[in-house]
């Protein structure tokens, strides 16, 4: 079992004819992902890696019954690509694009709140249910099927944690990169209950970052609703205030959003917070 995606997920790639889209379609197919269609306006009728390309998402969904989409299009067109997928009835949209104007994401997120489509990202490496479906750009081979759910705001730091777990012989049910932008789709608070309900997930790892209040909100929810063991790490404990650390989201302003505030909130909710990023795997192992 897993959350959000599994071996039955029917994947559509938006921007499949670009360099990134083409390369990662090949990688996803190689991993065993069921890629059923691609979309690039004006390139309908082409075939990429044996995958049929359509001009519009609506057409692709009608022809192939795709139910998840992954977006590889430039920042200027990404907000529109998300809305096109949602309008065509796609259940899960994963937007990898880094650099979408925040003002554009406000309306997108508000619209998605009123319909059933769920969004992962933007500015994320995507998500993977090891052994079943890879909907992203992470290296598949570091993962191992198993019982730990991972939710993370960062990319390569997630690979690091997956690697630590796999090296200890601990597999993963689903690993979700929620994205580093200020306005994103599903966040910790929406994903944690999914892992709580997934019978195959036995423990949850949260990888947070300075900035925003998503970790504090997650802590509150964990205290009230979650009985599976949770391990967390907050990156940016040594970051100076007011500086942008790569992710648009990782800015501390004023007293809120600091690593200390997040760590204290999580600890108060009974979460084991790793002091060093080298200890996340062993800390989870000790909980099982």
């Amino acid at each position, binding site marked *: 079992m897993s959350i959000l995606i599994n071996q039955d997920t029917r994947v559509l790639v938006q921007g499949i004819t670009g360099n990134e889209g083409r390369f990662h379609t090949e990688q996803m197919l190689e991993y065993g992902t069921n890629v059923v269609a691609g979309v690039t306006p004006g390139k309908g009728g082409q075939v990429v890696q044996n995958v049929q390309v359509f001009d519009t998402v609506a057409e692709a969904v009608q022809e192939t019954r795709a139910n998840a989409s992954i977006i590889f299009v430039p920042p200027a067109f990404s907000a529109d690509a998300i809305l096109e997928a949602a309008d065509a009835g796609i259940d899960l949209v994963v937007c990898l694009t880094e650099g979408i104007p925040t*003002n554009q994401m406000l309306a997108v997120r508000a619209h998605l709140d009123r319909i059933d489509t769920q969004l992962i990202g933007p500015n994320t490496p995507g998500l993977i249910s090891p052994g079943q479906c890879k909907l992203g750009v992470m290296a598949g081979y570091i993962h191992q099927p198993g019982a730990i759910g991972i939710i993370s705001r960062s*990319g390569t730091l997630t*690979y690091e944690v997956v690697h630590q777990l796999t090296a200890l012989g601990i597999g993963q049910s689903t690993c979700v990169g929620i994205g580093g932008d200020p306005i994103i789709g599903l966040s910790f608070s929406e994903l944690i209950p999914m892992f709580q309900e997934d019978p195959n997930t036995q423990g949850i790892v949260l990888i947070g970052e300075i900035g925003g209040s998503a970790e504090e909100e997650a802590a509150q929810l964990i205290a009230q609703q979650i009985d599976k063991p949770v391990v967390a790490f907050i990156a940016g404990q040594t970051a100076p205030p007011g500086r942008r650390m*790569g992710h648009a989201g990782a800015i501390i302003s004023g007293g809120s959003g600091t690593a200390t505030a997040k760590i204290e909130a999580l600890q108060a909710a009974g979460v084991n917070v790793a002091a060093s990023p080298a200890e996340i795997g062993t800390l989870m192992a000790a909980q099982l």
Partner: protein
Amino acid sequence: MRIHEYQAKQLFAKYGIPIAASKVAASPDEAVAAATELGFPVVMKAQIHAGGRGKGGGIQRVKNEREAREAAARILGKPLVTPQTGPEGRIVHTLLIESASNISQELYLGMTIDRSNRAITVMASVAGGVDIEETAKTNPDAILKETVDPLLELRPFQAFRLAHRLGLPVKTARGVAKLVRSLYKLFRELDCSLAEINPLAITSAGEPIAIDAKVNLDDNGLFLHPELKELRDLNEEDPREVEATAVNLNYIKLDGNVGCLVNGAGLAMATMDLIKHVGAAPANFLDVGGGATAEMIEKGVHILVEDPDVKAVFINIFGGILRCDVLAEGVVAAAKKLDIRVPVIVRLEGTNVEAGREILNQSDMEFGTARDLREAAEMVAAAVEVNT
């Protein structure tokens, strides 16, 4: 991206937000000429990207030519130290000279993207002026808010309600509401991340006027506004950071002694935390990003070893899109060209890791290679101890 007050006020003027008559000056002569033309008294304001300028002596009200010349000479070309600049301060290159306004009340007005509400929040307070941040901490109820539904945008009733809740007379509240709507329009059309007027003054005639102006632009939105990119002031940035940005590296100078080069912002922050955890301190944040080339890596190593504070270098790469062999080639190329006098510790994992390790081993350079984070941390700690 941050811009100066005078640049923000030029944007205000385009959006019909009332500001005082003003001119910009770069020398005492220009300052005196500008002040004379505007007519005394005027306020002279140092243009730097930091708040608290008044507390640092960067805002002066002057009544005549002699005072204007003295104030300009005292401020221009010299570092201005404020509570937000750090002890070294910022060199002032530009003065904004503004006609003094007749003020009866000082308000605060600001708008920003509120991440937890996923919406723009407009804030206002009657406690405007220098201590608004203190007010936000000690008496948050004194800051009134209106949250904007992104699909409905700011409605006129919201703007008026906010002004009315401040307790202003109806005529003044109407003027403030109009200004709030203009500022919101600017925020949306120019892809801002913050727009703030503190203080927003009410004149003795009951009209609002923006005494200060702070506008931050969303870096992700700049491609939509090429004309706004021109407002960037490189004088306000660390030269090493400018050099790094030119080759798409994300570099921030810090005050420790372990230089670090990492792919991905989250892993870069975690690496800094790891360095701190073993008792050392990071000299910088450097994210080479997902798709770094060998040239970018070489440039990154160059920036690190040029920094006199750096006593050891820690390269931590989890290869995904960035392959370990590409990374290793860049590191070896940099080491061949540069005279590296500090220990270099490399930790590689991920795509093509074996090829990457092989390239490092085959080179004549002495790299400390670590298998995992824990081992890397111990090697970094040992290197710093020996070298300082």
